């Protein structure tokens, strides 16, 4: 078995780390390169940058941060946010990213999943899904959670796998920022049919939530932001707890 990965996610806007509560109310939480280095030295298994500036003039700022990070951080780095073309992916990988995460662009044109997986290898193509429950179904939202695409999340994730993605990063919009735990119902349903790794995101607030994400949600990796950024929990503490719970994890 591979070990369950703990991934701190840094939302980056205009070169700084921010994190929203339910996608709004941004609070500044520091320099991305320093944070990535800190997390890497303290046991993170992977780092994720999500660029939320999403304007063209900020692309170079992002590439610059990715390159600086790759100089100092020697664990896998995933970069997402505004990735819309093979050219984007190429420049991110060249700057030192190991994986890219695609969201809205994949919804607009699912072929990009196939093309990029074939071109770069599917190990570096993560497809991110923002899902929200409306009545009794989960729907896929695009553009940073602002537009309901009308797609059913479970169907869309099945398609992502068919198109050849390497991993799925699934964020529950209902849970994101609430610190009330992962959306176990959503995760476990997806885990039933998924044969590629599942990264769970949204809602983690305490140690027990990490355990539930693995034991009940069946996730292969857990992504968290605020709990780590504001020092509510350290990665070390999370790992010690999970080891006590007999989860196979890197020490």
């Amino acid at each position, binding site marked *: *078995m*591979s*070990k369950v*990965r703990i991934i701190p996610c840094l939302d980056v806007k205009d070169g700084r780390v921010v994190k929203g509560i339910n996608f709004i109310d941004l609070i500044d939480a520091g320099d991305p390169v320093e944070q990535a280095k800190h997390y*890497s030295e303290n046991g993170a*298994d992977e780092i994720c940058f999500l660029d939320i500036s999403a304007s063209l003039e900020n692309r170079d700022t992002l590439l610059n941060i990715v390159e600086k990070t*790759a*100089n*100092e951080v*020697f*664990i*896998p780095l995933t970069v997402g946010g505004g990735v819309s073309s093979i050219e984007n992916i190429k420049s991110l*990988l*060249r700057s*030192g990213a*190991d994986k890219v995460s695609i969201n809205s662009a994949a919804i607009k044109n699912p072929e990009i999943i196939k093309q990029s997986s074939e071109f*770069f*290898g*599917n*190990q*570096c193509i993560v497809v991110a899904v923002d899902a929200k429950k409306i009545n009794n179904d989960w729907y896929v939202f695009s553009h940073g959670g602002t537009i309901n695409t009308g797609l059913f999340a479970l169907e869309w994730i099945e398609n992502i796998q068919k198109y050849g993605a*390497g*991993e799925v990063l699934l964020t529950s919009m209902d849970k994101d920022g609430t610190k009330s735990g992962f959306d176990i119902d959503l995760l476990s349903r997806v885990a039933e049919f998924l*044969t*590629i*790794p599942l990264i769970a995101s949204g809602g983690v607030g305490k140690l027990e939530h990490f355990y539930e994400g693995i034991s009940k949600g069946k996730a*292969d*990796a857990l992504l968290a932001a605020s709990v780590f950024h504001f020092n509510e929990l350290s990665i070390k503490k999370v790992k010690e707890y999970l080891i006590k719970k007999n989860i196979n994890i*890197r*020490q």
Partner: protein
Amino acid sequence: MKQITIVDYGSGNVLSAQKSFIKIAKDNNINSIVLISNNLDDIKKSSHLVLPGQGAFETCMNGVRNKPGLIEELNNFAIIDKKPFLGICVGMQMLASQSEENGIHKGLGWIPGNIKRLPANNLKMPHMGWNSVHPAKENNLLKNSNDYYFVHSYYFDCKNKENILAETQYGMNFTSIIGKENIYGVQFHPEKSSSQGLNLIKNFMNL
């Protein structure tokens, strides 16, 4: 002075390999330069060679073959001059006799064995993430078991047991470090494996 050359034949993300070697050299005061190059003179002058590899086996082998004189120079370096050589991921697999990835393709043939697909056995593919590497015999790269970062679906089915330096469990026990005299190969990515990865690179640089 040491000259480490990362062989550039069009494989992705060679930058992080270079950065990890530079970091090790700097932190340990190892007098060295680290190049990314496919220039035959650079390769000839090197003290250490690193063969990276990402993506499909055939594409990687073609990348090496398409550079005139490169294979001969690699042979001179590793087989005749017996200088330290490290293959990473598909770069390790390329040391084998042949690969069964998308048809049968010939490798460099330096260490006898075939590249085969990992059995799925209800496990996720590719084998991606951190896993334990256990030494199978005493070797220069790895003294004690530790965790390293893997991304692969194929493994090196090694013909001679004495070439198996370390093993990893994923649906089966497979060779994660291979070695024959001065030639080494690691299936995982030491340049992405935090301090333990950098340590392994340091061990290689000190050969």
